[in-house]
């Protein structure tokens, strides 16, 4: 066709083609049919979500009726006495995830800043790619590696060292089992690091070069330029990345259940075993003999779901605010 691509739609239907059947609003039936099919697909998402929430709600009704909001503040998990309280689970989930962030965030940010500002061009993409590969490893494989490699290593070398060096802190006292809150936090840190790193990197890339250049023009060193001009500009996006990492950590199941020790208890020591909401569901669901036990686990799932929804929604809002309007990723690679 020799017509210019930008030809405007005033060109009528070429005479050789038959007239299009029109239905409502000047559109053809085929158009409507097509749109109908697409709409069905799009409807599936809200419907599935609503159905999921509804099923969780119905399943937890028995437990909510019996324990109410006390479930969230009580510690007893006793299937014999049918007393269920989710505090150790909530505690374990929060502690393992937050501790994972304490380890992962400085690491991820350091890598992200290095790869966007300081690294030689040649290695930026390959290194980013390698780290992002960590996100492709299935959780159960992390767990396998955790049981047979990480835990013996921690139990024989790292934990005794920590206990002798920092044993005055209650955090590092008590018997060393291997399976522990700290082991779970370390594995979670490795798992969330690629997410925090790659989103931070995108966010930092969205910062206009003028920011850094202005700082350097005013006499800042390269590091100072980054820390005073670039990072604050991207601050909300970076916080968003961190919260995204938190969201992922909160929901991790397999790797955690293989290394955390599976114990419904709140302990001061990081060497002590613990439990998370996701791990408890995975371990106990098929075996909950009493209906109320099953309902309690569904209640836990509901709580976990709501927490991760809130965290993820918050994260995306923050990230969106920084990258809104900025070119999508793929720049400068």
């Amino acid at each position, binding site marked *: 066709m020799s017509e210019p691509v930008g030809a405007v739609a005033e060109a009528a239907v070429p005479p050789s083609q038959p007239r299009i059947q029109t239905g409502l609003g000047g559109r053809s039936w085929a158009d409507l049919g097509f749109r109908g099919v697409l709409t069905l697909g799009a409807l599936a998402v809200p419907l599935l979500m609503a159905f999921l929430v509804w099923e969780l709600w119905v399943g937890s009704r028995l437990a909510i009726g019996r324990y109410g909001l006390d479930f969230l503040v009580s510690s007893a998990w006793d299937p014999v006495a049918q007393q269920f309280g989710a505090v150790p689970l909530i505690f374990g989930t929060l502690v393992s995830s937050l501790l994972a962030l304490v380890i992962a965030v400085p690491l991820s940010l350091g890598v992200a800043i290095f790869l966007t500002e300081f690294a030689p061009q040649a290695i930026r993409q390959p290194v980013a790619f390698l780290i992002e590969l960590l996100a492709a490893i299935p959780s159960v494989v992390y767990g396998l*590696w955790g049981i047979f490699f990480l835990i013996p290593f921690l139990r024989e070398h790292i934990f005794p060292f920590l206990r002798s060096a920092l044993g005055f802190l209650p955090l590092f006292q008590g018997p060393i089992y291997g399976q522990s809150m700290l082991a779970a936090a370390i594995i979670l840190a490795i798992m969330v690091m690629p997410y925090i790193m790659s989103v931070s990197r995108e966010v930092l890339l969205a910062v206009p070069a003028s920011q850094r250049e202005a700082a350097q023009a005013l006499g800042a060193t390269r590091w100072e330029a980054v820390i005073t001009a670039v990072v604050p500009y991207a601050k909300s996006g970076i916080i968003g990345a961190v919260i995204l990492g938190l969201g992922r950590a909160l929901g991790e199941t397999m790797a955690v259940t293989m290394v955390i020790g599976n114990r419904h208890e709140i302990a001061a020591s990081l060497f002590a075993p613990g439990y998370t909401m996701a791990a408890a569901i995975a371990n106990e669901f098929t075996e909950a003999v009493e209906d109320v036990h099953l309902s309690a686990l569904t209640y836990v799932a509901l709580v976990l779901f709501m927490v991760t929804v809130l965290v993820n929604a918050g994260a995306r809002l923050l990230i969106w605010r920084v990258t809104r309007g900025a070119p999508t990723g793929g720049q400068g690679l």
Partner: protein
Amino acid sequence: MKRRGLRRWISNGMVVIMAVAVVVAVMPLLLILGTLVVKGAGSINLAFFTQTPVPAGETGGGVAHAIVGTLMIVGAACVIGLPIGISAGIFCAEYPANPLARTTRFLADVMIGTPSIVVGLFAWTWIVARQRHFSGFAGSAALAVLMVPMVMRTTEELIKLVPNSLREAALALGYPRWRTSLVIVVRTALPGIVTGVLLAVARVAGETAPLLFTALGSQFMSTDLKAPLAALPLVVFTYATGPYEDWHRLAWATALVLIIVVMLLSIAARLATRQRFDRKG
């Protein structure tokens, strides 16, 4: 002058620290891959791929049943999830201002963040409890629920990248709206959509939690989606947490195969996307 020297020293020091961080960050990947290869490669032989398990405690056997099981379950998940995800993605990209599109986009992001164990529990109440038996199909449904938002978002993003000039040209040439969307826009975005699909498949193929109380697992070779089925991630979990040395050996080998498949899919997806962006300039 002295202050400037100190500042420069700090700047260089921080760069060194960050470089160390990069090394530390890359180490786990190398350690995990290395351990998998060292412990698993030796067990990857013909028997591994073609035999089913032997009784607990004995040596030998393979994971053929789990390979078939994973193919069946993931295949069925694709059949369910891909049409829904892709149509939803096209809808949100072609009619972006539509309130349904906005809701769906937001909810898809929420769904992507949902823990997979919660999705597994949902599939249990939805299908297993109602049908009163475990099934590979319930596992596929759980995986489909995971796939739909992922595929939807990537499809949407890629279709949005197709320049409007292409659409306008097609409309100007007399293509009806539906043909424009389907044939012109989707076909242009197809490589990207395929890579999005590959990434989603890679992700769900490695998922264990949703299968724990849906597909349940099996020691036998079977293709019956209406009954419990074996799957590679389930094999890794069961064998890793068991006491038999032979089980551990098989767990390492299965994990290695799983990770190779997942990584190949991810790498292929990424390379294809990169080419796409380079082509567009």
